[in-house]
């Protein structure tokens, strides 16, 4: 199953805010199915890596406590027009995804 990943750059001050939105259920493993009463297994993003031209800029660690469809943001400095900013994530079920964009 693929999860749509979107990334947005916003020029702020001396750098860019990088926002990443993933369509992901982020199940805690504590919730029960209301019809069957069975526990819904945990399914959440664990690691999210932000890169600039392939070099890691920041690594986020996520867990059950992050909202469904997580929106995370960092502030990147030193990105120039034409540079490639990418994000890659992996979850506890071994699924992964990512997105990339070019600095305007």
């Amino acid at each position, binding site marked *: 199953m693929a999860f749509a990943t979107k990334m947005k750059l916003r020029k702020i001050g001396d750098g860019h805010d990088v926002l990443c939105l993933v369509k992901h259920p982020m199940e805690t493993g504590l919730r029960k199915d209301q019809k069957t009463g069975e526990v819904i297994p945990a399914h959440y993003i664990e*690691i999210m890596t932000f890169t600039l031209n*392939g070099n*890691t800029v*920041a*690594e986020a*660690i996520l867990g059950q406590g992050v*909202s469904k469809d*997580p*929106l995370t*943001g960092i502030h990147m400095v030193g990105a120039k027009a034409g540079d490639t900013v990418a994000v890659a994530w992996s979850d506890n079920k071994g699924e992964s995804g990512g997105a990339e964009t070019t600095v305007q």
Partner: protein
Amino acid sequence: MKRRVFLKKSLIGGAMALTAGYGLLRSVVATALEWPKTVFDQETEADAVKALFGDTPVVESADVVIKAPLQAENGAVVPIKVTTERADAESIAIMVEKNPVPYITSVNLGQGSSGFYSARIKMGETSKVSCYVKAGNEVLMAAQEIKVTVGGCGG
């Protein structure tokens, strides 16, 4: 997380990704950092802080600024923004005292990113939300109480 090790791994990951392309970048980066299961296993915030930062004393500081609502009508989505002016900030962590798993999320800042992290978090009930910033040999923190209204009708 040791900053030097983190940077070194980043460099390796970056160099390999440049030669091998995007597909490998994902797998290389994903294995570079271990998901800290021991921190997520802690049931109290104090234990989680200890698991994350060791014995480093935690000081409350005005250098950590939290931007979050005072009251959240929907505990499933609470936006939190953490900013720090400290240039030597290495990582930022968010914890919710009364959640079943107090450790919510954190970010390791490498070269090219400054002290800012934003995330949307889940909150089971009204609780104190604490943000920790590791800078040099110090751990700085700030906290804010966020009221969660169940039912979403305000009040």
